[in-house]
């Protein structure tokens, strides 16, 4: 396989789903079974992405394949380009996206059966896959922003797919607008980058930074640029404080939640941060880490008390994304991406599993009405359990490997810089995660059914739904990533596929452990050692303590859940009542939504109403007032004109008329009389002038 081959297949991967979208959307009304075309397209895309991944990882594992074309130009110096950057992360991501997308397509065949906009649903999935692949493939930040917005669009369309429901259309709108808040920051970052480097291409930007060119010639602005770009990730990956849209996004069809709002789109923020990792300074990384930490912690506490099966999973998604972001912030770059991949599989599995449950329970989402489903839905239960073990970080699962890596990273970061808070919160969240996941499993699948009627009618899902669950559950096992179930370091995933990032931020702005040093090698050529060697060292030493600790907290969390809900050793209600304020605080999601509603939303509406009033009353009032004033003045002038000016004219006319009245007597109107007068006059004149 040649580079061109890879590029061509990547083009196909990008544009096939677009074709699927267009065809399915336009013919959706006419041909009832056109969705099969979209299914075919996504299957081909999946095969193509496997081919690309295979080709890239076997033949060009150390190369970056970059290709670009001119999109448009404005002058000789300003030319905007589009292009691909295909490295190992790209092809792995393409594979993950295509695979989960394909599985979700298959799952949806049964899940969405009977929906009146069945074909349109598949069309939307098509445009989502297109835009997501665009984000993954792009070689420049502008194109990333373009596809970034397009995934926002498909997310909007799919969240609001059942737009007859007000809550669904509200959620779609909220998602789009909240995302835009982050996007503004990202866009500002792009503006700074373009102004400084006159290009959007990641590679060129990084090489310019490495060559010492900085925005506004200051390290400070480099930090700001990094943070601004990261704001895009805050929005898209639902990080605190913009995480509020994701739980609401659960209004969309459940397979969509699995695809977009758990596995792929929300991971785009992490992907962006991975792409810009090279320009992040220590301060920017600190910011990233803090945001990640808060996003891991806050939603985890909220997930403890939620009763909607999808809401629990949504908060858990935010929490896990927080993990990834925190991992990037503390420098555990590889593990962030690793967790992105493993999380994509097990979280998609969890969501599809919840879809299976919801389907079986006739669109019941409240776990308090479930229970005992283990017997009715054995396959769903099994896959759900495996994924839950993975997310909780139990050995032999993929989640254990990636999560352990992140925790070790925070550990190493603590030991290298002294900021232990991330490690502490990381382990705490691991505890909470294990607890709420098993709370969910126990209430849903164990115990006695609460709603017997629905329980009786529940039945296992058909093959097209069971197959994706099985595939995803299988992918949640360690063996795909590394032969050693306790340590991922020796696996192909790490050793060969994921390279350490090239850091380009100036040396003095980096964390100490990330500073590059030039070392003389024995053959006297100098080579740079990057942070990863120092850091990997620290991570190695942190590996076993972190592993045991994380295993301990995971098991502790699980056991607590069993104690609370399975064996009922503790009266949960009583406990909740005894810490009522805390419980309510968590149940009401820290009142963040209410806070935004009361401040930003109300403020915007208030301001708009004030300005609308101002415009109507004041600005237009001035215009109308001026018009009125002019009219008043005109009225006065008119009166003056009528009385004085016209009065004089009329007076003249009146006088003339009066005189005329006297003389008109002579005018008889009879020609003969005039003639007589004429003749007499002539005779008189003759006499007068006869001399």
């Amino acid at each position: 396989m040649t580079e061109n081959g890879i590029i061509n297949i990547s083009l196909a991967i990008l544009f096939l789903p677009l074709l699927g979208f267009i065809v399915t959307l336009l013919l959706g009304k006419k041909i009832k079974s056109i969705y099969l075309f979209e299914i075919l397209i996504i299957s081909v895309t999946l095969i193509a992405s496997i081919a690309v991944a295979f080709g890239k990882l076997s033949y060009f594992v150390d190369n970056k394949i970059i290709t670009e074309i001119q999109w448009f130009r404005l002058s000789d110096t300003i030319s905007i380009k589009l292009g691909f950057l295909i490295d190992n992360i790209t092809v792995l991501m393409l594979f993950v996206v295509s695979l989960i997308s394909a599985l979700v397509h298959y799952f949806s065949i049964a899940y969405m059966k009977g929906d009146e906009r069945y074909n349109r649903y598949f069309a939307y999935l098509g445009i989502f896959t297109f835009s997501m692949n665009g984000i993954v493939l792009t070689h420049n930040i502008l194109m990333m922003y373009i596809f970034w917005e397009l995934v926002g669009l498909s997310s909007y369309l799919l969240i609001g797919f059942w737009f007859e429901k007000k809550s669904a259309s509200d959620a779609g709108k909220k998602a789009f607008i909240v995302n835009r808040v982050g996007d503004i920051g990202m866009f500002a970052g792009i503006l700074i980058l373009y102004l400084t480097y006159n290009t959007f291409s990641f590679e060129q930007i990084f090489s310019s930074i490495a060559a010492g060119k900085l925005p506004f010639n200051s390290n400070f602005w480099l930090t700001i640029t990094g943070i601004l770009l990261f704001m895009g990730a805050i929005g898209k990956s639902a990080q605190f404080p913009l995480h509020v849209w994701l739980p609401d996004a659960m209004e969309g069809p459940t397979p969509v939640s699995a695809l977009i709002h758990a596995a792929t789109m929300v991971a785009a923020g992490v992907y962006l941060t991975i792409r810009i990792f090279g320009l992040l300074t220590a301060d920017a990384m600190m910011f990233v880490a803090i945001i990640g930490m808060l996003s891991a912690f806050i939603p985890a506490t909220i997930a403890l008390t939620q009763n909607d099966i999808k809401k629990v999973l949504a908060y858990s998604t935010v929490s896990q994304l927080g993990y990834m972001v925190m991992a990037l912030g503390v420098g555990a770059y590889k593990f962030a991406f690793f967790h992105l991949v493993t999380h994509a599989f097990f979280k998609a599995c969890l969501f599809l599993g919840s879809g299976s449950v919801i389907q079986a329970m006739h669109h019941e989402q409240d776990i308090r009405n479930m229970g005992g489903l283990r017997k009715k839905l054995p396959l769903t239960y099994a896959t759900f359990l495996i994924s839950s073990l993975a997310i909780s970080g139990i050995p032999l699962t993929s989640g254990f490997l990636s999560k352990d890596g992140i925790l070790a990273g925070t550990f190493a970061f603590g030991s290298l810089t002294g900021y232990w808070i991330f490690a502490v919160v990381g382990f705490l969240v691991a505890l909470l995660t294990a607890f709420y996941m098993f709370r969910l499993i126990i209430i849903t699948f164990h115990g006695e059914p609460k709603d017997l009627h629905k329980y009786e009618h529940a039945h296992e899902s058909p093959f097209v739904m069971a197959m994706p669950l099985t595939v995803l559950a299988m992918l949640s096992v360690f063996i795909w990533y590394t032969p050693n179930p306790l340590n991922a370091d020796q696996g192909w995933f790490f050793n060969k596929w994921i390279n350490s990032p090239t850091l380009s931020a100036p040396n003095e702005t980096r964390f100490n452990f990330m500073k590059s040093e030039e070392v003389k090698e024995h053959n006297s050529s100098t080579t740079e050692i990057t942070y990863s060697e120092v850091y990997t060292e620290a991570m190695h030493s942190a590996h076993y303590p972190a592993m045991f600790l994380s295993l301990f907290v995971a098991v502790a969390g699980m056991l607590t859940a069993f104690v609370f809900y399975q064996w009922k050793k503790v009266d949960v209600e009583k406990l909740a009542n005894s810490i009522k304020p805390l419980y309510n605080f968590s149940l009401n999601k820290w009142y963040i939504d209410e806070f935004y509603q009361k401040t930003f939303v109300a403020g915007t509406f208030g301001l708009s109403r004030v300005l609308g009033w101002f415009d109507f009353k004041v600005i237009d009032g001035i215009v109308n007032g001026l018009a009125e004033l002019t009219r008043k003045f005109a009225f006065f002038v008119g009166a003056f004109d009528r009385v004085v000016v016209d009065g004089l004219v009329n007076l003249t006319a009146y006088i003339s008329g009066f005189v005329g009245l006297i003389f008109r007597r002579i005018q008889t109107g009879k020609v003969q009389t005039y003639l007589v007068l004429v003749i007499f006059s002539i005779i008189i004149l003759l006499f007068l002038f006869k001399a």
Partner: protein
Amino acid sequence: MLEVGLNHFLVVSTFLFSMGIYGIVTRKNAIMVLMGVELILNAANINFIAFSRYGNFGLQGHLFALFVIVLAAAEAAIALAIVLNIYKTLATVNVDEVDSLKE
């Protein structure tokens, strides 16, 4: 033998002219007024011819007389048409009664 001179012609034309004026001034019938006008025109014609014959003006007088005759004919035709129309609309040819323009 009394030589017929300029004065004789002038007397005749004066007579004709006076009759014309009298007719125009006194008659109420439009046709009669028109006839007065014709008389005046003919009086003028006689004068033209007379002066042409006895004066030293060449043939201009003849020429004018011919013009006047043609004009008179045209004028009579138009005037009679007007009178006819007036009769049609107002059922009278009395000039005193044709006063629609009077207020």
